[in-house]
């Protein structure tokens, strides 16, 4: 799945609420969407400003069959993957200066 399809799927998940936040037996505080420090609307606005140049992807470090997508835009860093029917956020935060 390339950028265009990932963007459509991500925006759909955000607007329909069909997403979860990855957890490793703890609430990941680098995921500002899970902590409520940024809103779904904020993330939708950032994703809408992204094009292919802001997107990279790689295999998940533990499950290589899962593709991890990263969007970097305006100082924001959004990392996520899809396991149908849901979308999973690994992190949503601002890059360190």
């Amino acid at each position, binding site marked *: 799945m390339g950028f265009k399809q990932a963007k459509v799927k991500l925006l759909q998940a955000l607007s329909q609420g069909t997403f979860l936040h990855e957890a490793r037996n*703890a609430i990941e505080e680098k995921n500002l969407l899970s902590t409520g420090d940024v809103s779904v609307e904020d993330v939708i606005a950032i994703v809408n400003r992204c094009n292919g140049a802001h997107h990279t992807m790689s295999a998940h470090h533990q499950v290589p069959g899962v593709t991890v997508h990263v969007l970097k835009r305006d100082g924001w860093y959004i990392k996520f993957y899809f396991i149908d029917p849901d979308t999973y956020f690994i992190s949503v935060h601002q890059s360190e200066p």
Partner: protein
Amino acid sequence: MKVYKQGEKGKAICETCKQVVATTLAYRDVPFSDSPGEVKDILVAVCDTCDSVVAIPPQSTPAIKKARETATKPIEVNLPAPYLEILDLAAYRIDPKATGEFRKRLLAYYIHMYSGLISSAKIPTFISSTTFVGKFPSKRLSFKVTPRLYDEINSIIDATHLSKTDMIKGIVQEIEKDIVRPEKPKHLAELQRLAVVSAA
């Protein structure tokens, strides 16, 4: 907007099982990754194989936000690199197996100690400690504390009239004097217990 429900089945990556696993939504108490405290009874996805908490649905976010606001306050200071090296070295001397989290606990221990001095009307004298000469890269020390410790930090700042950064520098220098320099570090047994507990 989808509403996830207890008992609902799904799939997610489990870091413990290192694979995509079947999950069930259930209510659990979940700790924060970088701060003290936890959120009680939030809906989470639990691994059907190992019972780890592997994912959190968005409807748990308001409870997480509320718990974080009441449980923690951020402390951020930029320090010359040697101060963080001293803090790490002190943590290492106390317990070579200490986690990165322990340097924050060590600072908290000293903050609590100095705050206790202030409440018995003794103002800490660490302000006149020696400083490092030369130019060093600056590093950020960032952590979150409970409201109680936050108040203790402010009580030291008020009593010493120091900036937050200078107060932390002063405390690090006290840690150097107590733990890094002596042959036998001060408060060793107590701090070793704290290191074990904070890694638990």
